[in-house]
């Protein structure tokens, strides 16, 4: 059967750099850091006392109080960005068949704060179980997709992918596949995460995964810098409306870019450490190029996973050099996590948006916080350090990798009819 073409027709973002796509893109291109001292809880006893939180978010601006109380923050974030994307795509009753609109969302963890609060309440009690009836439906990761479908009446395929920090990219790839196979006309996809909690920071601290640069939060996320010391936890969400091309054309939708390939692989190596030679990363980039049926030379920009951890950054770059050979020197490479921090299961969503906006605007957002070269990296590579660069971006590749050794890549191309 002939595969259908899939295009991006709407975007939504709630990020540490801004609470709409436009604010987010402005932050990205200006090289702004979203890191600051943690406000969501008292972090004074924690090794890491900063994070990339969403700023100025007031639930009551988006939900009535009763509605907000029944949703963990990660679900609220999901609804906020889905709404921006649905409006941006001009999906209005009558211009789609609700049975053919799916929601495939990504979240690495789900309602971590809800889980933490309910367990703390129980532990502080006398052993009588007084769990809130909304505990489970607030916490479970898939409820985000459920909420979006309930709000809009989208009755097509509906589920959430869980693959740690690759979750949203898996969701995007699944959406792409369902549409190109003809199983849906439109899918609301993306991801959301809200893990800046005691359990989130404490848990990642115990793994020695987080930067502990408390004296300078805004310079802590420094992918590819010699003195990088771990990632900075972020929170937020991103939404994309993926749509079958003929469907989009028929209703006169604006088209941001075309999705041309999805790749997946596993490291099969270690629960948290990346494969030292970047084997999984190498395979996933080969897979995505093969899926899109393009040559490595056609790629202009790679939005890397690049979390700012000592090991991860090295293995990803090794993989890029193996896959792209000499063309690696022509690429723009950047880690927008230097600005947004690491949104875990939502990272793939906001980085897909960064990649799409790069394609649309021919601007590559930078890898900020570069102070000292690390000799582990080939100095001929262009990491887009510190300042955005203008260049034609016909094709952008976005990588995300998750604990468990899950690797995902997705390719976006400038839309040509």
């Amino acid at each position: 059967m002939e595969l259908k073409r899939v295009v991006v027709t709407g975007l939504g973002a709630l990020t540490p750099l801004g609470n709409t796509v436009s604010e987010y893109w402005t932050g990205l291109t200006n090289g702004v850091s979203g890191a600051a001292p943690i406000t969501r809880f008292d972090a004074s006893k924690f090794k890491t006392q900063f994070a990339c939180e969403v700023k100025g978010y007031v639930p009551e601006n988006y939900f009535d109080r009763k509605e907000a109380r029944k949703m963990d923050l990660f679900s609220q974030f999901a609804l906020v960005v889905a709404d921006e994307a649905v409006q941006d795509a001009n999906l209005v009753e009558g211009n789609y068949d609700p049975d053919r609109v799916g929601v495939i969302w990504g979240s690495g963890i789900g309602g971590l704060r809800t889980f933490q609060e309910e367990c703390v309440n129980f532990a502080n009690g006398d052993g009588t179980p007084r769990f809130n009836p909304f505990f489970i439906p607030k916490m479970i990761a898939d409820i985000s997709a459920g909420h979006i479908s309930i709000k809009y009446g989208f009755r097509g395929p509906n589920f959430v992918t869980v693959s740690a920090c690759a979750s949203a990219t898996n969701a995007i790839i699944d959406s792409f596949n369902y549409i190109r196979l003809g199983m849906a006309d439109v899918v609301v996809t993306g991801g959301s995460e809200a893990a800046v909690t005691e359990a989130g920071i404490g848990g990642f601290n115990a793994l020695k995964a987080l930067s502990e640069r408390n004296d300078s939060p805004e310079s802590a996320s420094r992918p590819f810098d010699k003195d990088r010391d771990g990632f900075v936890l972020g929170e937020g969400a991103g939404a994309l409306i993926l749509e079958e091309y003929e469907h989009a054309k028929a209703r006169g939708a604006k088209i941001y870019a075309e999705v041309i390939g999805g790749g997946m692989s596993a490291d099969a190596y270690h629960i948290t450490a990346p494969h030292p030679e970047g084997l999984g990363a190498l395979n996933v980039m080969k897979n995505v190029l093969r899926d899109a049926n393009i040559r490595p030379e056609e790629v202009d920009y790679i939005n890397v996973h690049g979390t700012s951890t000592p090991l991860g950054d090295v293995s990803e770059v090794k993989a890029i050099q193996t896959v792209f050979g000499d063309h690696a020197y022509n690429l723009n490479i950047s880690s927008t996590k230097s600005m947004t921090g690491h949104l875990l299961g939502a990272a793939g969503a906001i980085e897909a948006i960064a990649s799409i906006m790069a394609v649309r605007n021919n601007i590559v957002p930078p890898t900020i916080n570069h102070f000292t070269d690390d000799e582990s990296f080939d100095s001929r590579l262009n990491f887009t350090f510190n300042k955005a660069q203008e260049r034609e971006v016909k094709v952008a590749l976005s990588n995300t990798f998750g604990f468990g050794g899950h690797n995902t890549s997705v390719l976006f191309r400038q839309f040509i009819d």
Partner: protein
Amino acid sequence: MSEIAEKVKAIIIDKLGVEESEVTPEASFTNDLGADSLDTVELIMEFEKEFNVSIPDDQAENIATVGQAVSYLEEHAK
């Protein structure tokens, strides 16, 4: 209004996000105050916590209005 009735009212306003004027003795949680089955379970749990009582499921089923909640609690609250 009794102290219990005041507290019951406050809990209902907080949990169901309704206006004080709507919380009349005859008001039904589901028909008048917009509660679904989970909201009702949550309300009962809040009453149990606030008034330090344990409301068995078969009796909880009979508490459908504000007045019924107040009566039950006035009788059973410790």
